[in-house]
């Protein structure tokens, strides 16, 4: 039994990029098939942002030891949101001894947009043209001027709250009003400014005013504070809340969950892709689907895995990989370094409801912006994600206050209104020797699909940056008048920040890149890779806004080329 229907476009993945591609292409009249590897999501059943701890077993912390059972559970997932993530056991990957990589994945309709951090920063030419700035690596084949209109479109569509702060290396955009700073955040902002480093409200994809007419089914944020557990009112942007419903409403999108793509099928006569082979997650049935254009948007490393597994006579190293660059230049951001403490001036004040604010403040990059800020020991830079609020379960009670009994409780009550913390978000240099490959020892997943082996380590550049960040965070906290409780820390293991990027990068030269400047494969013209795999370098900013803007831009180009008969 062979298929038959040939879609205009087949999109692999329904997360940020896949959802946006579905919306953009259906709007242009394309008939689209979206294959999602995970199950469908039912917000009524699966979202629990309004579930109180006392409604959960173990007050929402889960039974003892549950986090150790799967790698991904150890940080990102809460017991409320655990069903959004895949289990390492069914979806293995391998690493070299002593060189771990934490690969957090969310195979489910909507992907990681169901629980993403929502921080939405534009990259600037300091990032797109970083190599020209400091001589390391390669520039992106695009500039900020080319990207700016697409950032505009995406920000207006998804709804981003923030301020226009006038910093050229953190370009301004189209924002809804920013969420107000807390008392502690204002103290920290002033302290940071004393050291010559501006601190700004974080820009987040949350609706802070009434939704626009096209934002059907979305509501203004009401500060319940459980964004990562699935937003019941769709105040935060997700594919499920925004792009996929709009695509579905056109009647031109078919969404098939539980569809694990094995590889892309190519036609040796035309040199083009003609479809994909996939397996049903539940029934294990082997299937195929066909389309004129394939959009690979399965998330950075899943997309690269699919391409590497798509070997054929014409593509012996994986699809479009005669350059050997596919899988290379893997990066993540690093965190784990910073400082925390409390503001004595805020200790013992009346408790206020601050735990529902969906974001904090940000101290943007201040190193290596120009000759005056050049650091002698490292390239690029980092920013600090900061917060000061009164959370329901204050970490300060566990980390900074010892003892037990009535005196302990008294101390917790006193200091829980005063905590402050800063954590670095830092760039990692894109290096050829950090890469992912198909596991050479034949490890497969539960469906028999060969898995990835990761090879990634930080260089001296990241370690020097971490040392500087540790010292600087303490300096800023002290300048803000905080009592510093802890400083330093460890660099997070690669992958933990969940900003894995690169591995199918764009560029002008097919010998050193996989994609052209429109996310189109150099070697297979009807295949586009629109997720984080396309990144040339990481900058030090959260990547999702750029992924969305790149996707819109790629879809514009694709549609034009399609009309001209070039695809």
């Amino acid at each position: 039994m062979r298929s038959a229907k040939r879609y205009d476009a087949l999109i692999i993945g329904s997360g940020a990029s896949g959802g946006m591609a579905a919306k953009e292409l259906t709007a242009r009249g394309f008939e689209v098939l979206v294959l999602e590897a995970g199950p469908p999501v039912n917000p009524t059943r699966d979202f629990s942002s309004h579930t109180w701890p006392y409604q959960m077993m173990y007050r929402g912390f889960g039974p003892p030891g549950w986090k150790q059972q799967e790698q991904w559970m150890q940080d990102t997932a809460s017991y409320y949101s655990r069903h959004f993530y895949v289990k390492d056991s069914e979806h293995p990957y391998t690493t070299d001894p002593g060189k771990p990589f934490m690969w957090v994945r969310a195979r489910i309709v909507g992907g990681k947009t169901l629980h993403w951090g929502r921080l939405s920063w534009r990259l600037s030419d300091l990032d797109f043209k970083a190599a020209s700035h400091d001589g390391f690596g390669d520039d992106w084949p695009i500039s900020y001027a080319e990207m700016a209109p697409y950032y505009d479109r995406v920000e207006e569509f998804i709804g981003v709250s923030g301020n226009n702060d006038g910093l050229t290396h953190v370009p301004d955009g189209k924002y809804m009003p920013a969420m107000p700073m807390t008392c502690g955040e204002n103290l920290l902002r002033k302290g940071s400014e004393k050291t010559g480093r501006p601190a700004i409200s974080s820009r987040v994809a949350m609706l802070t005013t009434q939704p626009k007419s096209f934002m059907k089914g979305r509501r203004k944020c009401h500060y319940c504070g459980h964004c990562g557990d699935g937003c019941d009112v769709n105040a935060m942007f997700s594919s499920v809340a925004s792009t996929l419903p709009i695509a579905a409403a056109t009647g031109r999108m078919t969404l098939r969950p539980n569809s694990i793509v094995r590889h892309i099928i190519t036609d040796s006569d035309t040199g083009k892709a003609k479809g994909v082979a996939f397996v049903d997650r539940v029934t294990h049935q082997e299937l195929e689907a066909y389309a004129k254009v394939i959009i690979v948007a399965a998330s950075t490393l899943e997309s690269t895995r699919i391409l590497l597994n798509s070997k054929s006579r014409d593509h012996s190293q994986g699809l479009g990989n005669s350059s050997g660059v596919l899988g290379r230049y893997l990066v993540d951001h690093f965190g784990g370094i910073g400082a925390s403490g409390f503001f004595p001036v805020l200790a013992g004040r009346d408790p206020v409801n601050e735990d529902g604010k969906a974001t904090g403040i940000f101290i943007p990059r201040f190193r290596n912006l120009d000759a005056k800020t050049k650091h002698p020991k490292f390239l690029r830079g980092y920013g600090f994600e900061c917060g000061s609020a009164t959370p329901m379960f204050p970490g300060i009670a566990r980390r900074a206050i010892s003892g037990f009994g009535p005196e302990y409780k008294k101390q917790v009550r006193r200091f829980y209104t005063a905590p402050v913390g800063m954590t670095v978000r830092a760039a990692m240099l894109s290096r050829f020797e950090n890469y992912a490959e198909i596991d050479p020892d034949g490890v497969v997943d539960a469906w028999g699909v060969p898995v990835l082996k990761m090879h990634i380590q930080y260089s001296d550049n990241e370690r020097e940056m971490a040392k500087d960040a540790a010292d600087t965070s303490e300096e800023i906290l002290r300048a803000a008048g905080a009592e510093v409780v802890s400083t330093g820390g460890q660099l997070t293991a690669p992958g933990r920040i969940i900003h894995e990027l690169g591995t199918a990068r764009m560029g002008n030269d097919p010998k050193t890149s996989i994609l052209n400047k429109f996310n189109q494969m150099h070697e297979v013209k009807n295949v586009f890779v629109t997720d984080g795999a396309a990144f040339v370098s990481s900058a030090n900013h959260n990547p999702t806004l750029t992924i969305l803007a790149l996707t819109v831009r790629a879809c514009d180009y694709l549609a034009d080329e399609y009309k001209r008969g070039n695809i």
Partner: protein
Amino acid sequence: MLGQEKTRTTPVAVSASKQRKLHAIHALLRGRIFVGQFKAQGHTYDVTFAPAEASIAEQKLVLRGRFTVKPPQQSLRSTDQVEARLVATQGGVGVSPVRRQLLTGTAQTAQTATSDQKLEQEGGPETELQPGLHAFDKPKPDALGRPTVESTDALGFVAVLYFHLSPLDGEQLGIPFDVSKVQLGGRLAPTDDRARDLQFLFSDLVMALGSEHPDQETANNCAEQINRILQE
């Protein structure tokens, strides 16, 4: 769309059905035994692999032992002398195995001290620890005063061992699939002292054999200690 007529309507193609293969089983190390299950055709099959012997062959760990299956609504079925050959590993991130006890004595001493282990688990990933550090201690910087990397290099440990099992007989075991090439993913998420000891030993053995300069002596010592635990 775009002016082109669609002539066919079937959404997807179906390949010819073959006998389903069982590709991979996931298991957690509990005590000395890997305990797991897999689901197929709406049924759950409980599985254990109880290694009785460890050895090193071609620079890889090999376990040999009893593989047991509980097919739905049937009694236990097992087969002995199943070989599990380690092919790859996934490095762990977060709470590392406790090494202190084994460094100062035999595996038996590990059964006494658990309070610090609990502290380490409570410390969580934001306070990732170096072996032997108290939960509230700061991680030590490297020789140049730079922060270290979580769970990396000397702080590294193994989270999952991926074994290829020797061919199984599906009919004998009551498994209606092709089980000639099954992968066992053994996750080391210890909740008991014996599993903690084994995680430490498996980690050191893998690190010893997988480093740039393999350390055969350490690997052999680890294998010896693993055998001691497996044969207790």
